[in-house]
Structure formats: structure tokens, C-alpha cells
């Protein structure tokens, strides 16, 4: 028979898995690492589940765990990355399974753009992409709502600029060429 904790955990997983997984992909470049981070977050959610007292919204609670874990995970991985031999930047990108699919390439470009932001801006960017309110973003990140608003403007501009071909040449085409070269 399944325990209440197990049932609660499964329900949380069902409702939040996509958001948490996207956050992982926004934080680390490699897909395998994103899976490791995803698992680490799930482990922490399970461990802390008994201590959830319902004082905050469950989504905020999960996000707190997820983002705090992602920040320390990213700090740990950066340390490992520095140790490794330098790899050309195009090799570091997680390669979409079907790189001919335009949608996949766009998503990769978006991850790349988010990955290029400083870690704390990544937190705000990914929360913003999930339609999270400024109040919740401020609560999770620990900065004031006003400062969140300032950061949001900068982040929106930066992401739109990076993903907008009209203003910055055909990045999609360049990206496809880079991927094709790295494949061959």
C-alpha cells in the first residue's frame, strides 16, 4: 500500500515536472546534467515533503527547492567544467534529437540565450517564462519586487534581442550550420 507521502509526491511530480524540467534545461547546458539536476531536485522535494506546513503556496515551495538546488548544482558543475580541457562552444550545446526540426533548434537557441545570462538572472528569466508573478519571483530570489521589475525589463530585452533575427541577422540559419558542421 502506498503511503500518503508517496501519493502526495506523485501528485506534485505530475503537476510540476514540466516546469522543473524546463528550469533544469535552462540552468545546465548538457541534457544528461539537466537530468541529474532534475533527479537531485526530486530527491530534495521528497526529503523536505514532511516539513511542508502549507504556509506558502506549494508551487512556490517547490520552486524554492528547485532554484536553490540549481544554483548550487551549477556552482559545482562550473568547478568541474573549469577542470576539463577547453571544448569549442558549439560542442557544449545539448544537441536536439532531430536537429532538422525548426522548433527544436529554436528551443536550443532559447536555452543557449538563457544559459548566457548570469545565474540569478536565469532564475528570474525562467520564472518569468512560466508566467510567475513578480511577487513570487521576489519571494523566491530574495530581491525586492521593484528590483525584479528592473531586472525583468533587462532580461526581456536581452532574450528578445538574442532570438530576433530581424535585428541581429539570421541566427537560426547560423545555428543550423554550426550544428551540421559539428555533426559531420
Amino acid at each position, binding site marked *: 500500500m502506498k503511503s500518503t507521502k508517496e501519493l502526495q509526491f506523485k501528485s506534485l511530480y505530475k503537476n510540476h515536472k514540466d516546469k522543473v524540467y524546463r528550469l533544469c534545461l535552462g540552468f545546465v547546458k548538457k541534457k544528461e546534467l539537466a537530468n541529474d539536476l532534475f533527479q537531485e531536485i526530486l530527491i530534495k522535494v521528497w526529503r523536505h515533503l514532511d516539513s511542508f506546513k502549507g504556509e506558502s503556496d506549494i508551487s512556490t515551495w517547490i520552486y524554492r527547492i528547485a532554484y*536553490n538546488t540549481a544554483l548550487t548544482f551549477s556552482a559545482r558543475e562550473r568547478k568541474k567544467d573549469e577542470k576539463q580541457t577547453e571544448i569549442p562552444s558549439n560542442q557544449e550545446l545539448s544537441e536536439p534529437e532531430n536537429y532538422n526540426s525548426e522548433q527544436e533548434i529554436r528551443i536550443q537557441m532559447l536555452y543557449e540565450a538563457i544559459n548566457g545570462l548570469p545565474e540569478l538572472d536565469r532564475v528570474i528569466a525562467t520564472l518569468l*517564462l512560466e508566467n510567475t508573478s513578480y511577487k513570487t519571483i521576489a519571494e523566491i530570489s530574495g530581491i525586492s519586487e521593484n528590483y525584479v521589475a528592473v531586472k525583468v525589463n533587462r532580461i526581456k530585452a536581452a532574450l528578445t534581442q538574442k532570438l530576433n533575427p530581424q535585428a541581429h541577422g539570421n541566427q537560426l540559419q547560423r545555428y543550423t550550420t554550426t550544428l551540421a558542421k559539428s555533426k559531420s
Partner: protein
Amino acid sequence: METNFNDIQQLWQSQKAENFDLASLIEGLKKTEVKQKRERIAIAIITPATLVFLFIFMPWQESKAILLSLLVIAVAMIGVGILSFSSRISPSDDSENFSNKEYLKSQFEKLKFRYKIAGKYMYYYAFLLAVALNVAYFVLLAPFSDLIRILTHTGLTVMIFGIMHFSIKRRLKKYDKSLQPMMKQLEKLLTEAKN
């Protein structure tokens, strides 16, 4: 192509999580929980049990010096137990309670504290252990000549500090490789959060 933020949002939200073997993960977590519980119980039992053992078998009623020695050992053991419990065995890392800023700060402080345990508190522990054992030996070696007593006390003290010093150095070297880069990165993130 994504020309405004709403399009970017839609693109982002179109990504779904891959299938994940949740059942195996839960199974593994349950086993780990049982193991950790056992470890915590063991620590909670081993320290008092060792002290009870020492108080049963050492003739502390016969000499105040031996009683003092046992009390010093008890204080040192309880101190080390508390330190290791709070730095490593504690079940929560507070990731569920803290904002990013607070969490980064707490993680940084925790790593700093681990350095402090290895570099400072272990020397205090060595000192207390050396005092306790020397007091006990002072009583036990009473029938022997002064030379033997001095040599034993010196040898014992040098041995305790020597072993402790080398193990501390080794641990700090390991920390320099594993904890130091992470602390630097956390410090950078904290500065970023303050700006």
C-alpha cells in the same frame, strides 16, 4: 521566429519533461531514508554508550584525576558529535525555507564552517584528548620512575597532536580542491545578488 516575449514564453512552455522512472526513485529514496535513520540512531547511541562503557570500567571513584579525565573526554566527544551532526548528518539543507539569496548565504556559511571544524575545532579536540589522557596516565603511571613518566607523557602528547595534525592537513588539502572553488562561485553569486 520569436519576435516578442509572448512567443518566447510559448516556445519555452512547449517543452515537456521526459519520462522518468519515478517508482525506482521512490524505492531508492525509501531505502536511503531507512539507512540515514539508522546512521543517526547509531551516532545518538555510540557516543553515550562509549561514555557509559568508560565510566563503568574506569576506576573513577578511586581518583578525582581519572574522573576529571573522563569528563574531559565526554565533553570532547559530545562536542565533535554535535559538530558532525550539524554539518553533515542533518536531514535538511533549508533549501525549502530560504530565498536564493538566503540559501546561497547559508550554503557559503556551511562550507566555511566545515573548514573551521577541520582547521580549528579538531585541534581543540586534540588538546582536550591530550589533557584527558595525560591526566589519566598521570595517575596510572604513579608507581613508575620520573623518566618513564615524562617519556610516556611526551610521547603520548606528540603522538596525539602528530596524528591529528597530519589528518587535518590532509583534509584541508582535500577541501582546498573540492570546497574552495565552490565557495568562490557562491561568493560570486552572492555579490551578484547584492548588486
